[in-house]
């Protein structure tokens, strides 16, 4: 079993916190993990990506090859399309619906979302809305972990345990909110809808 994920977003959006939860959960299940991160200049409001590789066997390198990703998990729409060449045939795109606009030439949203939804397997997640409902606008990242979770061969209980651990270290009240956010993201992405191409 291997699962290669490209995490995409804009510097400062917390891409690494998502990678940390998924990677931690995989490790807890005894799997091998390699997780490459972006530090330094690229982090300042620019496009960032992280590669997360999970396997039950030795992982040779830190980078996912082109055409090798099982999933692109993005914090916002434009970035979800930037790394398409990495996606395997049959790979999934999971992205938050809300755009992060810090450039003057951000494209019109409606055609952008349409372009994402026209990819064979994609989920556009109303992450901000779900996070607010769960109790905190800042729980967006855990909504996205939840949305991705049903496509990753790691038990959701393992991810929940990691989330609980992470937030308990910060503030106890955050645990519940973030677990709720995770659950709502998971339910949203796995609500039984078929992917466009398979409908």
């Amino acid at each position: 079993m291997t699962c290669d994920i490209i995490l995409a977003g804009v510097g400062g959006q917390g891409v690494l916190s998502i990678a940390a939860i998924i990677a931690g959960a995989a490790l807890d299940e005894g799997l091998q993990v390699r997780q490459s991160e972006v530090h330094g200049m690229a982090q300042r409001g620019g496009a960032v990506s992280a590669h997360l590789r999970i396997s039950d066997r030795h992982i040779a390198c830190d980078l996912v090859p082109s055409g090798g990703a099982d999933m692109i998990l993005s914090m916002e729409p434009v970035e979800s399309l930037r790394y398409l060449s990495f996606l395997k045939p049959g790979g999934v795109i999971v992205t938050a619906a809300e755009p992060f606009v810090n450039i003057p030439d951000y494209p019109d949203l409606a055609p952008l979302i349409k372009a994402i939804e026209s990819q064979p397997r994609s989920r556009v997640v109303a992450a901000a809305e779900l996070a607010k409902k769960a109790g905190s606008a800042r729980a967006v990242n855990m909504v996205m972990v939840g949305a991705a979770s049903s496509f990753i061969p790691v038990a959701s209980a393992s991810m929940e345990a990691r989330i609980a651990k992470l937030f308990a270290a910060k503030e106890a009240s955050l645990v519940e909110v973030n677990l709720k956010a995770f659950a709502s993201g998971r339910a949203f992405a796995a609500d039984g809808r078929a992917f466009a191409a398979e409908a």
Partner: protein
Amino acid sequence: MGSDDVVLLADEAIALGAVHAGLGAAYGYPGTPSTEILEYLIALYEKGRGPRAAWCANEKTAYEEALGASFAGKRALVTMKHVGLNVAADPFVNSALVAIKGGLVLAIADDPGMHSSQDEQDSRFYAQFAGVPCLEPTSQQEAYEMTREAFDLSERFQLPVMVRITTRLAHSRSGVKPREPRAENPLGKCADKAAWTLLPANGRRRYDRLCKIQGELEAWSAASAWNPVAAGAGAADFVVVTGGLGRNYYEENLGDLEARLGKGKLPARLHVGAYPLPEAKIRELAAGTKRILVIEEGSPFIERAIRGVLPSGVAVSGKLDGALPRIGELNPDNVRQAMGLPPRPAAPLAPPPLPGRPPQLCQGCPHADSYQAVAKALEGLPSTLVTADIGCYALGALPPFSVPEALVCMGASISMAVGAAEAGYENVVGFIGDSTFLHSGMTGLVDAVSREVAVTIVILDNSIVAMTGGQKTMLPSARIEEIVRGIGVEPAHVAVIDPSPSQAARNAELFRREIAHRGVSVVIARRECLEAIKAKKKSAARETAAKGACK
């Protein structure tokens, strides 16, 4: 993963390896992708669980402090990014001549692809130039093991040892199995004074020793398990040499290569993880072969050397003949192509055209206000020239600011401004950050003052080293002002401003006046970095939460 494994960045694995090797002290200067090595050690030190670890004014002082610790008998680690070694080149090269006492290890992180750097220089050249061994890990576990071994080697050969990593490994996490730690060395300086006082007579003897020990290093490298040969079962006319992360990308594609060549028909391969190059192994590997493919991360270092080692009948292929790209990073795809494999099938998706998203200053960053104010002040003036330096504010060279016209290396903003002004430009402004000023900007200011050159230096004082993740500046803000005055800038032309939007008009006015002054002006633009404020708030919140829990 076993239960006692720890998940670490390779940077952190180096740090842990050093601690377990009996580390006595660690010094460095922050620089992506090396920063996390020392951050890990400083965190341990601050918790009272590790030896002295500290950021230094620059890479040269860091290296020299480590050298002092080594002279005193302690094992010492020094960390920096590749270009930092240019700054520390003097002590590094000369430290190969002394009789290293406590193991001295330089952990250096190169940045091929220039994710966060101004060039891609390959530190292996420095190791070769200085005549010291270099180890290059390809995994987090190797980063740990090689660092431990580097300390042993350093004491065995009485030489400093380099551990070189590159961005992708430095910033990748994986499980590491630690081993039993070794105790620290006792304090005790080197008894052989002559071996540490490099007067010409001693220097000559020591240089002779350095040259003579090269043979021993080569013998060590030839026998080292870090330079493994995988026997080939395929046609002997094609063999492979990998170096650094080239190994990992080669192995990523090995299954497909075997499928193509036939089971058990893979070419023979040498991986080089320890330098000096194991030349005899290369000759042996290449005996009877027609083509040798070299896959190494960084410059064509092995490739060039191999061209010299092998008879002319063998075609050496790699970065010099275009089999692999000459610049940028290796990756699973370009290595795959060099291995003669077709691209993997990708999802047949057509992305719409996307806008680029380059890095930029944070919304509300104080540097933005400083750039705008200077741009306003320069408006309509003839003969203007603006230099800048290394840090977040380098991003001001991009739109929408586009103010700096030259930006080369740490500290150069001031000295280049001086040169440009003396060459004849009249309205010259140099931008430099607070920590860059302390790193190597001060000396340029000494030159400016000594010759009363008409330049306006803007010190962007945001109270932290923002670019590399918010390390504390070496000295408090107020001290920078004292230094500037102490160097001799006329007090009437030292100003401290608040680079905030509400002060925009007043600041532009002040810049206009100082630029008109025909001598040295220094304007300190003092406002805290937004990331620093965030970090402060976070730690304050954490403290309150902790207090609440204790009630």
